[in-house]
């Protein structure tokens, strides 16, 4: 089949134009919300309302915990600041898939948290992380990494 370069460029241009027009007609949302990614517990991305409902319920369930007398699950990011080799640059480490899933789930729930509690302050990320850790620790099948 003879390849018509001019026709191909026109087709690509039309496709880009249609996508741009569709995007303008779509309500503006943070980019990551549109992704169809796996949740930490394996389900597909829930709706905003479902995320809010589940978060609200988990925050209420965990609120009575006595921090000073209970084991509180959390996640810790592991940051290497040590340069190595002749380049004196910090080497790139392997990133387990769990990190990406956690970041994505955290993003969605942080957005939900702000809708639930519009006056949220910086330290409110703590209960949010604790909710996600509690779900992960209690679901019975820990992701590797």
């Amino acid at each position, binding site marked *: 089949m003879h390849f018509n370069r001019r026709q191909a460029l026109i087709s690509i241009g039309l496709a880009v134009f249609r996508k741009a027009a569709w995007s303008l007609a779509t309500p503006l949302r943070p980019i990551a919300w549109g992704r169809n990614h796996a949740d930490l517990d394996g389900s597909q991305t829930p709706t905003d309302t479902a995320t809010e409902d589940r978060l609200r319920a988990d925050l209420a369930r965990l609120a009575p915990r006595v921090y000073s007398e209970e084991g509180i699950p959390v996640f810790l990011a592991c940051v290497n600041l040590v340069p190595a080799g002749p380049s004196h640059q910090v080497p790139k480490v392997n990133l387990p898939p769990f990190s990406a899933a956690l*970041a994505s789930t955290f993003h969605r729930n942080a957005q939900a948290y702000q809708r639930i509690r519009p006056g949220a302050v910086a330290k409110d990320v703590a209960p949010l992380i604790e909710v996600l850790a509690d779900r992960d620790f209690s679901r019975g099948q820990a992701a590797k990494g």
Partner: protein
Amino acid sequence: MTTPPRTFTESAAQIEQLFATEPVIRAVNFHNAPRAKADEYDRQLAQYSKLFSSVTEDQLDHYLATGTWTNAKPGLIVSIYEGYRNGYDVLLPLVEKHGFIAWFFVITGFIDSVGKDQLPFALNHEIDMLTREYPDGRYALTWEQLRQIDRKHVIACHSRSHQKLSDMGPSKLREEVVGSQDEFRKQLGHGVRAFASLTGPAYGEHARTDRLIRAADYDFVFSNFRIQRIRAEPSRRA
């Protein structure tokens, strides 16, 4: 130098960025561990032992350096904060029963307080004393207990007095970061590798604290939802 986040949006963005770009490890944080809750801790650790494996300092160092975890089960850092006496009496036997390594983050000033001074010290330094189960008034670990713990578990520094470092003058700050490490060297015969203070700062957020952390030869800095590896070689042990 980086600036600590001031709003929820900034803080959430920082955490999301960390989770997206760095390996993550799980931790469970204990503090005061009254005997009345021993069964609850037992059940909790039993459940975790099915899912997770223990983490030594060398394993953490390797994970921080490479992002590679070699055990079949993901690692779980079992952190026991402050230096409460019941960390030894109640939690430690359960931690060992379920095959974990405990990480004791110790406030050296709490340990150094003598009997009747421990309760006032705790109340003045944000060490929660909701349950007070020792009639003799000793609520903190002893150095002898810490030497026993040190044989199989991890001892880490949680500063000297459990106060916000960024508010301190130079000599007080030195005592918190370097003085506490000197105390570990004296009492354990070696320095400890990990440092955590009350509410941070993270390494890179407070220049004076950073300099002292390096001077004290710590390898790891634990702060809000992150562990930073700042040295390539294990600290000198003597």
